[in-house]
Every structure is written in structure tokens, then in C-alpha cells.
């Protein structure tokens, strides 16, 4: 089943560039899903280019920043998948409210 990808969020996420590869995460197919509910809560899942990519922390925070800038978004949760440190990354980018 194809993952859900909200077009507005995907358009905004094109602004997140992987500094190592110089391309947007969207164009590289590294955004696994991007959803937005009626209350404006966005959820984005991404897969870094490697399970040991050192800049995954940075990418997660950039995705969060750009998602929050998208139209109609009130809150955003970002999840990194398939990284050696995904638990730490997800905790740091989604602090308890």
C-alpha cells in the first residue's frame, strides 16, 4: 500500500536539502509519509540515506521546521525510521508537550 503524502506538505518539504547529497529529501524519495489531519496536526516520517547517517538529527529538525511553516499546520511530529539512533532522534525532535 502506498504511504500517504499530503501534496502541500510535500511541496514545503522540497525545501529540506540533504547537505551531503545536495538534493531535496523529497526528490531523493526519503520522505516515507507526510499527513495532515483536519485539526492541523502534521506527521512526517523520513528515512535517512544510511542507518548511520551522522546528519539525521539535523535533517529531522529541518523537517520539523519546514513542516511547521506549511500552510494550515498547527503542530508537527517528525519520525526518523531505520537509523541506528532513531529513538534518540525522535525523542529530541518531538519533546513531550
Amino acid at each position, binding site marked *: 500500500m502506498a504511504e500517504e503524502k499530503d501534496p502541500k506538505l510535500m511541496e514545503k518539504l522540497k525545501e529540506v*536539502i540533504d547537505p*551531503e547529497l545536495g538534493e531535496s529529501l523529497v526528490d531523493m524519495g526519503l520522505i516515507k509519509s507526510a499527513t495532515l489531519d483536519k485539526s492541523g496536526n502534521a506527521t512526517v516520517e523520513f528515512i535517512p540515506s544510511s*542507518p*548511520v*547517517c*551522522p546528519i539525521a538529527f539535523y535533517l529531522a529538525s529541518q523537517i520539523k521546521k519546514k513542516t511547521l511553516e506549511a500552510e494550515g499546520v498547527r503542530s508537527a511530529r517528525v519520525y526518523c525510521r*531505520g537509523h541506528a539512533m532513531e529513538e534518540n532522534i525522535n525523542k529530541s525532535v518531538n519533546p513531550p508537550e
Partner: protein
Amino acid sequence: MNLAKLPLHFRFFRAAVVYLLVGGFLGFLFSYEAVHHYTHGTTIVSGHIVLMFFGWVTMTIMGAMSKMVPTMISRDLYSEDWGEITYWFMNIGIIGYSGSLLFEGFSSDIYGFVLPWFYPNISFLFVSFIVVSCVIFAYNLYRTIGLRTEKLSDPSIGLSLDFYRASIAYFVLSIVIATLAVLGFTTDVFSPLKFANVLWVAPFTTLGWMTMTIMGAMYHLLPMFTISKVPNLKLAKFQFWALNFGIVFTGVAGLLGAKRIIFEGVEVSPLSVLQTVGVIFAGLGAFAFVYIMAWTVMTRKRRELNISMKFYIAALFYFALTGIFGVWLKTKPGYEFAEANTIILGHGLLSVIGFVSLTIMGSMYSIIPMLAVVELHAKSKKVPTVLTEMYNERLARLSFWLSTVGVAGYIMGLVGEGYVTAIMGAEAAETAAFPYKILSATFVFVLAVGVLLFANNMRKILGWLKD
């Protein structure tokens, strides 16, 4: 520029580049006949080797492992304090030991001064710093990763960790054997290693420490740069074990006194069989690795190759070449042909410059900027949009071509010189070898310019971290 508070791994990298410049400058001088005439056979050459092996290669590996290995298993380094001690002991040891060797070479070997009786003790004191530092480094890493790792998010991480565990073990083993040899224990009549001298640690250092570390790194860096996966993990595991068998068999056979050649005709002994089997396994492991890496590059999602990948592809080509060359040198005709000329030197330099140094240079072009981004982001400083903003991209490409072509030309010069010497004999080949010496000298210069451009780019990257 205030870089005093640089994290540990950046300081390892910075020191490594400085040692590359100093040691490389000496190597550059040695390649010229006028200098070589005076320095050949002196401890000045040993000083250069210490700077390159411990200063350039080992400091880079230590810095990379101290940061990348804990990240792979989502842990912190077991002890930052032990890391600091490793860093300072290595620097004291490298500067002191290489300095004492250079001083001994100039004063005693060239000018004929008689050094005081206690002078070797000074050298040994500095060697002790290196030995202690290596043991602490190994202890710190093993306490970080343990002997087994469970719950890995990706099996290829486990593969890389296996390579790192093995490489650290070979490194410690090399240091122990070298220390025993330097202390004279291996010349004791009761020692089972009585035939061994310090050169016999070569399989453990070149294949075990340097090559295994590079392979472990390539198994996760190369897929990262190409957005692909290791295509065949079973073959990769076979490759890991084949190389281990190769290193252990050739290493043990050498330590117990096997001759340096295989395929000796009717002269078959258990040691020569062990050595032959070891060379076959090492060859299988090496070529399986090149095959897997080539397969990974061919199936990549990302078409454009970054600067690191370009260095890797050149390094893998040289690695395959040095493997073929190495097997030929282990045969009787090969060894006899190359024994007393520059062909053996060409093989050694193809391995340590063409494979090891080019891989490290390529890795540094990505690892240092990536880790710098992490550091800049953590300190809420400006982060570059792309890593290539952190250095001069055109000079990086130029440094790649100059270094790669420089290695090729230098090795061709050495092999050509060795060939005419083997055919005509040393004295008769004086004139015939001259064009090859010119070729070597020219391409060493090209290589040196490539290294200087690389070092300048590393300086620029670290400059982003200044306060």
C-alpha cells in the same frame, strides 16, 4: 582562529592532516636521488614511516572510530577521558619517536656523531607512549561496542562492527609483536618467534589494521553516499572470514619462520602450505570485497558521484592492482625478479598511498563536513545548505585528479626503474633507469600538490567551527 574547544574526533583529524604534511614532505624529499643517496638505510626513513603510519593513518582511524562506532550502536564512547589520554599519548609518542629517529639519522647515520649510551632509552620512552595509547584505545572501543552487538537496525552495521572489532585486535597484536621484537624477545633461542623480526607484523598491520578498518568503513559509507544497500551480505560475510583466515595464516606462518615466497616447487613444508593457503584466502577476500563494492556502485540510486566516491573508486582500482601485484610477488619468479629493486617499493607504495591514503582522503571530504554540520547545528550556528560550501569544490576535484594521477605515475616510474634494474643489473641500469627516475620525481611532485590542496580544503572545513 580559536579551535581550542574542538571535540576529540576533530582534533584527531586535524593532527592527522598535520602529520600527513610533515611525513609527506619527508617522503617527497626521499623520492629524489640526491636526498635518497644520503637517507637510504638511515633512521630518517623510519621517522617518516612513524609519521605516516601512526600520525596520518592511525590517528585518522582513531578519530573516526571514536565518533562513528558509538553512533552506529546508539551509545556514547565508553570514556571520553580515556579518549583524551589516547589522543595526547599518541601525539607525545609520535612527535617524540619520529623526532628521535630523525635526530639519530641526521647526527649519527649521516654526520657520524656518537650518540650517548642512553639515547635508545629516550626513543623507547616515546614508543611506550604509543603502545600504552593503542592499548587504551582498544580497551575504550571494546568497552563501547562489546564483543557482540544485539538489536541492530540494519544488518550491514553488524558487518562493519565485525570488521572494526577484528581490526582493533590485529592492531593490538601488531603492537605486541613489534614491542617483543624491539625488546629482543623474538631473538631468544627459547622463543617460538625466534625467526620473527619487526617486519613480520606486516600482514597484521597492513591487512589486519588498515585494510580491515577501511573495509568496515566502506561497507557503511559507500552505500550512504550512493543511497544503496550492500547487495549481498552473505558474500560480504564470506569475504570477512576469508580475509581473516588469510591474515592469520600468512601472519602465523611468517612469525614461525616461513619463507617470503610460496609455490616453491618440490620444497613443501607445513609452513609453506599454511602460507600458500593464507595467500589464497587473502586474495579471495580482497577480490570479493572489490566485487561487492563495484556491485554497490553499479546498483546505486544516485547517479552523480560525490568527491568521496571518486576517491573510493580510484582507491579500489589500486587495491585490486596491488592485490594482483602482491600475489605475483609471493611467487618464486616474481619475488626473484623484484627482490633487490624498486618494484617491491612500488607495490608497497601502491598499497599505502593508492589504497589507504586515497580512501582516507575521500572519507575526510565527507565525514569531517558531516560531523561539522552536527556540531554547528548543536551550537545553533549557521549550517551550510550543502557540504561542498565548506570547501573549494574545484580544488577538491583538482586534488583528486592530481593525487590519483600522481600515484599512478610515481608507481610506474618505480616499476620501470625496477624492471630495467632486474633485466640489466644495478650498475648497467644506471643510465637506462634515468628516464624512470625523472618520471617518478615528476609525478611525486604532482601527488604532493594534490595533497597540499587536500590539506588546504580540510583547513577550510575546520574553519567553520571557529568561535
